[in-house]
């Protein structure tokens, strides 16, 4: 049961991490094609999420849906476990 709790936490962190990943992308404007002088260093930006036809956004959404569903299943599982325990104790009395 403890493992399940850790698992739920991991799901949360995963979803959270992906969420954080998306935020700077939304704020960032379209990369301009203006040529800078050669001395200008390339600015590192979180461009990963908009590459490849924005497929990563779809992956994020799918993982969020899956994460939500799995979280629900885990919650129901824990509720049933709790009930099982309660009923066992109730019968023992």
């Amino acid at each position, binding site marked *: 049961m403890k493992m399940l709790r850790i698992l739920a936490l991991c799901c949360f962190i995963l979803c959270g991490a992906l969420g954080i990943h998306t935020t700077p992308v939304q704020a960032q404007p379209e990369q301009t094609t203006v040529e800078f002088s050669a001395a200008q260093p390339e600015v590192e930006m979180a461009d990963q999420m908009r590459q490849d036809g924005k497929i990563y956004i779809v992956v994020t959404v799918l993982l969020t849906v899956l994460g939500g569903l799995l979280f629900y299943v885990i919650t129901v599982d824990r509720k049933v476990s709790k009930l099982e325990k309660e009923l066992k104790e109730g*019968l023992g009395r």
Partner: protein
Amino acid sequence: MKNWWKILTVLLLVFTVAAGMLSDVPRLAILNETIRNLYFHVPMWFGMILILLISVVYSIKYLRKPSIESDIIAHEAARVGILFGVLGIVTGMEWAKFTWGEYWSNDPKQNASAIGLLIYFAYLVLRSSFAEQQQRARISAVYNIFAFAALIPLLFILPRLTDSLHPGNGGNPGFNAYDMDSSLRLVFYPAVLGWTLLGIWIVNIKSRLEILRQRLYENA
């Protein structure tokens, strides 16, 4: 670690969705990127067969040695199997619309799976028509064996005897009919296992809940 397989389920499904969208797939005409549906549509059917097999096993177990637990597991597994089957047929229709041109083209595979599902719907109807628990359990266990025995030829034999749009059917398919290359298999097998385990997980939860309910009635 009793619940290791539940953690495995989560890991496999996360892998399926992420790798299923991002991995390389064969570039085929008509199919295009929809080939990725292989990781989501096909596992529904594999999962359905495996979960219905669990249902039949528990039905046989019930007939050999009647117990409420076996009956409950057989029933819940059949319900989840039917859910997977419905999802399989709906995702198949969605996929067919954009590759075969029609949601429903009366393809032998489509028709046979529809008949198979109807046979299983009848299982639920039959079950709900008995008030007496032992009678319900015994007769639905017998029917369940019949339903599974009818499903196998409907899905795996009859569509192969005639021409079909569906891959793996029409003529002699063998095992390589899906033209699956190693990059597809790398995601496909984890996908089948992950989705099936998710189904088993739901069966597990629902059966435990039903068994609890049964205990509660006994003690009431």
